[in-house]
């Protein structure tokens, strides 16, 4: 990458993302927490739901996305809390670049963590609950839905986590703020996933992909406009 010519904005975004990624590479605290939590959730589902062979087709999409949502919340919380506690945020705010660069940097690193966890959970799930549709979990279509859904979730989640971390109630507040607002993402992701796993015609999947795309675009745009107001001192 030609450092002289790439825009300072993109450099700032990448700086934030790279900081998070390298920090996590060294300590691996966040990823291990998210992973263990995700696997625990899947384990609990085994007892909570009837997951015998016949039920799996119906239930897989819901179980997977519930797991992703909870693990994602954990990641979002920890990621922003670290910024606040170590005062990294203040340092970043002094940089002479548009504040939304921080937002996009955080979104990228949060997204990376969430996707990494999802990519590990999927094969584990396929092994624990094998079914005829298991191979469909690794098709581009399914993975595409996972990506689109995660983007929407992390886009809103990062914004809300930035707020939540500045309140007294902190960790507890993020899920409360996030879930009602993220309903379209979760519903669309589950439905699109389910349609793919049940090998339904593409026409069944498309409307949900539209919802996901619209949501992602709208909320990333919103976050871009509004992030400045959140990190003002």
């Amino acid at each position: 990458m030609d450092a002289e010519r790439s825009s300072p904005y993109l450099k700032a975004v990448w700086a934030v993302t790279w900081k998070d990624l390298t920090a996590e590479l060294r300590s691996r605290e966040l990823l291990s927490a998210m992973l263990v939590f995700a696997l625990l959730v899947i384990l609990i589902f085994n007892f909570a739901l009837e997951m015998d062979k016949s039920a799996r087709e119906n239930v897989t999409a819901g179980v997977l996305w519930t797991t992703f949502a909870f693990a994602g919340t954990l990641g979002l919380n920890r990621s922003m809390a670290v910024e606040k506690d170590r005062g990294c945020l203040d340092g970043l705010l002094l940089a002479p670049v548009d504040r939304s660069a921080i937002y996009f940097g955080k979104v990228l690193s949060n997204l990376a963590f969430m996707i990494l966890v999802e990519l590990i959970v999927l094969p584990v799930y396929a092994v624990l609950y094998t079914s005829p549709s298991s191979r469909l979990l690794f098709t581009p279509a399914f993975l595409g839905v996972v990506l689109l859904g995660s983007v929407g979730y992390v886009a809103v989640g990062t914004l809300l986590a930035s707020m939540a971390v500045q309140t007294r109630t902190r960790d507890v507040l993020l899920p409360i703020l996030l879930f009602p607002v993220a309903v379209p993402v979760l519903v669309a992701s589950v439905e699109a996933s389910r349609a793919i796993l049940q090998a339904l015609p593409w026409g069944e999947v498309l409307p949900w992909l539209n919802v996901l795309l619209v949501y992602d675009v709208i909320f990333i745009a919103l976050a871009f406009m509004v992030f400045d107001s959140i990190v003002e001192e």
Partner: protein
Amino acid sequence: MSSQPRVLQILNVVSALLLAIAAWMSLSYAPTERVMGAVQRVFYFHVATAWVGMLGFIVAAVAGVLYLVKADLKWDKVGLAAVEISLVFFFIAVVLGSIWARPIWGTWWTWEPRLTTAAILEMVYLAYLLLREGIEDPERRARFGAVYTLLGGISVPVTFVSIRLFRTIHPVVVMGGNPNAQGGFNMETSMLQAMLFSIFAFSVIFATLFWHRLRLGALAEKVEQLKLKALQ
């Protein structure tokens, strides 16, 4: 800052009157509906309170945007008042909807799009109030509140569309009735009159309550400022 302005006092009386008339129209003037019986009478207040709730929702979303643009704390008070009143009215609307559903569909709750979206909206409101609770600084509280109102204001309509799409794929199965009817019935003229009057009455009641809640907010702000002064 203690006695109510003249106009507000008049509004109080007018609102009380309108509520009484609306109640009379719903309970007596409108005929009993043949298929559902007396329970259908809750429909008038159900529609009216849902309407007022929607009004509050829009006011809150607009107030949020206006605060972010103008940074004038009065918009924060407007948003908070709108959320609180809308919270109460949507609660009434949802409960009345549930009560209306019970004898007809044999279930207290049906996950149909409007009811589900209303429930999610209530969650958004509660989250908004909890968010404010956790922030001391009035300016930051206003800012964060406005951002969340904006997010909620956009996501809730998208939620409604998503759930409606969801329901076309997974229709609600209800006992003994057409699930798509959603409690439809033939409205006679007097029923239509009762419904329209209730909507009008509750709109006026909303305005009155809103004014009262704004005054309460102004007083609360004054007290907060006095507290700071007393600490010096």
